[in-house]
């Protein structure tokens, strides 16, 4: 998991505007390489998300998109939801990092509902996946019950079609290309065959 988070964090350059989903993605902010400074967007209405506040210094008007107390860094700014999604849908976010239930070799993403079971709603995810310049999925390679998540074709309702660019899991890094998924990196200690065995989609291997 630590590898996954660190690996995602290597995808950014200083000045990038990034929106991090709830869960694993949020941890990315604390794992950035030395010297890299990104600008975090929180879709509930500000840029310049800072670290969690000190105990006793919480401000009930300053919470992140997960509803947790947050801070705003110097140079940050606040806006309404219309501006927030103008930023997101308008292509002004360089990258978003989101979790997934399923992702497939066409770059389709399913992350917001399991029919008859879990329907929390899509929140801002559909806009983020459509609008961000790069969509990075950060997740465990397989489900807790062992079910496959990197598929030939998503079976759950989609969050968006053909928008995913990169999939980073605990097993490796996969790029979505017009010719399917290219495994660019394998987590140290694993083999290509081991990753493919946990993946429904066909992987081609091309180390960078």
């Amino acid at each position, binding site marked *: 998991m630590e590898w996954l988070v660190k690996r995602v964090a290597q995808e950014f350059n200083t000045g990038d505007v990034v929106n991090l989903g709830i869960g694993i993605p949020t941890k990315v902010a604390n794992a950035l390489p030395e010297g890299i400074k990104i600008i975090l967007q*929180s*879709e*509930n*209405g*500000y840029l310049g998300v800072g670290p969690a506040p000190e105990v006793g210094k919480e*401000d*009930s*008007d*300053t*919470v*992140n*998109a*997960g*509803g947790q107390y*947050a801070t*705003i860094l110097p140079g940050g700014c*606040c*806006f*309404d*939801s*219309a501006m*927030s*999604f103008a930023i*997101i*849908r308008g292509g002004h976010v360089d990258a978003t990092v989101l979790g997934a239930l399923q992702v497939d070799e066409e770059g*389709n993403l399913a992350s917001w509902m399991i029919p008859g079971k879990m*329907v*929390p*709603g*899509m*929140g*801002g*995810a*559909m*806009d983020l996946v*459509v*609008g961000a310049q790069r969509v990075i999925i950060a997740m465990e390679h397989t489900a807790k019950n062992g079910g496959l998540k990197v598929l030939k074709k998503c079976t759950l*309702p*989609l*969050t*968006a*079609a*053909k928008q995913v660019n990169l999939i980073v899991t605990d097993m490796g890094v996969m790029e979505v290309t017009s010719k399917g998924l290219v495994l660019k990196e394998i987590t140290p200690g694993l083999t290509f065959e081991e990753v493919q065995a946990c993946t429904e989609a066909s992987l081609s291997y091309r180390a960078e």
Partner: protein
Amino acid sequence: MAQLVSLEEAISKVQHGMTLMVGGFIGCGAPDQLLEEVCQKGVKELTLIANDTGILGDAMSQLIVQRCVSKLIATHIGTNKETGRQMSADELEVKLVPQGTLVEQIRAAGAGLGGILTPTGIGTIVEEGKQKLVVNGTEYLLELPVHANVALLKAYKADMAGNLVYRRAARNFNPIMAMAADLVIAQVEHIVEVGEIDPDEVMTPGIFVDYLVQKQPREVTNAG
């Protein structure tokens, strides 16, 4: 022109069967005292338009728990399990909408637009039943305006002309909803005289606001 009224007088305008917009994002920026009064008054059969239904226990969540709402239009209900339960049990009609779409639909209503074209939702179940248009080779969904009878907002500061100022992430849907309802009620922390807010500082022009309600200090309830 805004009027400063009591909580009771303001909420007396919220009637059974109305469509209600409520600002806030998981509780932040939600007008808690206005919501408590709606619950207290026992208004039922509301159509609620809001980003979410709060966190179980907060004022927003109580609208659902106390069954004031028969139809919900929201983007996310995961932080209030009772909403999911009522939806699964067919006790509550729920329409889930992408957040960027919902806020543009509300803005369209306030801005006199007949709709907007968004790429969000293309290729998903969100597109079901909607008109699709192709512009410059890209497919878009036509999303229609969303209007309400009453909007309940929370502001940090207001002047007696109704001009509103929000603070930090508590702004969210509030200024957009202010434009899209027949009657706009704002719960305000600080109410000042006309002229005390600089014209450039105003986030919602006073002409949108009908009632100002002064937020009441509450006794902190200590266990034991």
